[in-house]
């Protein structure tokens, strides 16, 4: 398949634009998505191309954005609501969890909520304790809500299309650190990646690295480093935190008998906790070492850039974790 090398932000823009061209029920709304062309430039050129009716600037109220998106979705539209950053989406939790994720069940299937909530997630510019969250697991906690966490430009392209065409409410998390990262993006307006399916990004036989989103970068660098010592890492990129493709994790673990889970987010009640629990529950007799986790430190993110860096995983921490269980 022909492909172009694009940064993830361009891949997202292209996916969104193609979906709006394909289906006039698809529209975008959020703070600064129109005149300002999007805080992260994903909706650049949209207002000019699609007009104010389908590119709606909103007041600074996440609850209002999410609530309106739920209503529009129930009424038959396919809103793509932008949360600017995931830190602000906490304000919209009631609309997203109690309404979007539950309405289909509460109304016995009479209503669907095909809404996509895009949110930029992550840290790295000294945004400190309140603006450096990667809390996707909070949404993944609740049945009824799907959570997408792409790690590459190509995946982001295929997953956003899948999310927009899916009838369930989906939190679509975009890692801020990955927006400028280039990757191969297929030239296919119907390129759809299956919902809830993980991807083995690298094959290996000594240890399984389970990760998602930005963790893939650290895992890939660590795998290259470890390869020099003859250690072959298999990298499972989960892509979706819900539905969670544990089958792929188990299959890999049964081959390698060891796992290191790499998550950008906090360690308590986390992605790593969940994967580790599932591995011991389903692969107990295949375990040759304890399951290790590499997570952010369990602290409020500090303002100092050096301390900020210390808080988060990196390739070296992954290398050390792998070596500790070999």
């Amino acid at each position, binding site marked *: 398949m022909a492909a172009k090398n694009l940064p993830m932000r361009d891949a997202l823009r292209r996916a969104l634009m193609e979906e709006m061209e394909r289906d006039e029920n698809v529209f975008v709304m959020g703070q600064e998505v129109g005149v300002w062309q999007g805080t992260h430039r994903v909706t650049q050129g949209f207002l000019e191309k699609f007009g104010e009716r389908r590119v709606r600037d909103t007041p600074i109220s996440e609850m209002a954005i999410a609530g309106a998106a739920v209503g529009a979705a129930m009424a038959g539209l396919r809103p793509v609501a932008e949360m600017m950053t995931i830190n602000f989406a906490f304000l919209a939790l009631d609309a997203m969890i109690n309404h979007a994720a539950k309405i289909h069940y509460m109304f016995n299937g009479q209503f669907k909520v095909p809404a996509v909530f895009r949110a930029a997630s992550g840290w790295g510019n000294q945004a400190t304790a309140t603006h450096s969250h990667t809390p996707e697991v909070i949404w993944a906690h609740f049945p009824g809500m799907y959570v997408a966490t792409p790690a590459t430009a190509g995946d982001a392209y295929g997953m956003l299309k899948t999310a927009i065409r899916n009838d369930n409410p989906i939190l679509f998390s975009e890692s801020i650190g990955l927006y400028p990262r280039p990757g191969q993006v297929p030239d296919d307006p119907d390129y759809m990646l299956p919902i809830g399916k993980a991807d083995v990004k690298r094959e290996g036989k000594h240890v399984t690295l389970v990760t998602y989103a930005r963790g893939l970068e650290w895992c890939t660098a660590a795998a290259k480093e470890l390869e*020099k010592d*003859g250690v072959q890492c298999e990298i499972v990129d989960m892509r979706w935190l819900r539905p969670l493709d544990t089958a792929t994790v188990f299959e890999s673990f049964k081959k390698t008998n060891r796992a290191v889970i790499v998550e950008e987010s906090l360690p308590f009640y986390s992605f790593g906790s969940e994967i580790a629990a599932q591995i011991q529950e389903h692969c107990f*007799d295949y375990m040759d*070492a304890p399951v290790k986790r590499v997570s952010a430190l369990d602290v409020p993110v500090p303002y100092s850039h050096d301390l900020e860096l210390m808080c988060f995983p990196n390739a070296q921490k992954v290398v050390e974790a792998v070596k500790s269980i*070999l």
Partner: protein
Amino acid sequence: MAQDVKLTMDGTLLNWLKNAGDAVKSGEIIAEVEADKATVEVEAPADGVLVKLLAEVGDELTEGTVIAQIGAAGEASAPAAAPEPPAEAAEEPAPAEEKPTATASASVTEDGRIKASPLARNIAREKGIDLAQVQGTGPDGRIVKADVESFTPAAAPAPEEAPAVAEKAPAPAPALSGRQTYGKLPSGDDVEIIDASKMRRAIAENTVLSKQMVPHFYVTAEIDMDALMALRSQLNASLEQEGIKITVNDLIVKAVALTLRKFPNLNTHYYGDKLVRHKRVNVGIAVALPNNGLINVVSPDADRTALSAMAVHHKAMFDRAREGKIRPEDIRGATFTVSNLGAYDVEHFSAIINPPEAGILAVGSARKVPVVKPDGSLGVGTRMKATISVDHRVSDGAEGAQFMQHFRSLLENPMKLLV
């Protein structure tokens, strides 16, 4: 894929002779390990680059421990991984020397639990392996998959295999090691407190074990050495061109080996209700070391080895032992031992058996003494006394006496040693 450097004996890592990143040739010495009986050199098993050192000086290691890995040349100097994103690139550089990741230690916790991964337990269950017999090489000595998969039970007898001799006697009684046995450690200006070396402690344990468990009896014989001395001069004269010198000790070892061939019961080891009769005759030779110590080197198949070849091999082995460069194969598999103090002008002595061997021959000096000649007149002759210590669980006095009789007849008719 890197190749493991495994220890072939238990011991303490004394010294690395190579650093991580050094190129090594197969057979090159990369480390020294103080084993129970000697300082042993560890050779590189293959050409390549020492990519990883997995043990530190002072680590107490067990047989089978992987202490290093050798990779293909160039493996260690491969270019750095793909560029990191800037945020990570600014971080501290990777440490040049890696932390050891797999130092082995006991797989049994203080409360007696065996540390093994669920997978290792599962495999052990399927294969019927007793995990208590397996040495763990995982982090903190945990038994992992590789350990159970490579495990071969030691119990099965392997008669024709090279040294099939157990290192230690079965079911040893608790050894009297540890100074608490002797009360409070003296102190003050009048004494110097010295740490007992590993070898000292091993000798202590083995001799205590032997004297406590093995019922020794002793048979001494006096041997006329004149014919042997004459033959030795003749042999050495003929071998001078080749630079080979046969010693009295070489001839004694040969005589012991041939005698053992005739008395296989004394080449037998006691294992409770089973006796292990060795088909090979490997004669251990006690060698005194310069810094107060003792090591038994082994003359393999001494009954079948030509005297000249034996002389060369013995000399090389003794030199290695005295220089502290003994090889594992030099000290393995003895089935009977000779201890010769002839060089120190001793009349005779008796020796302590090395369990599980059935006997040891203590050899005194060949000395000029007054003798009664066959015709009844007095004269001067060369005589040597030798004393065999025998494990009474294996053999009895009469057999010990017959052994000495045959041994003496070989030395007194030394042409028999050559044919």
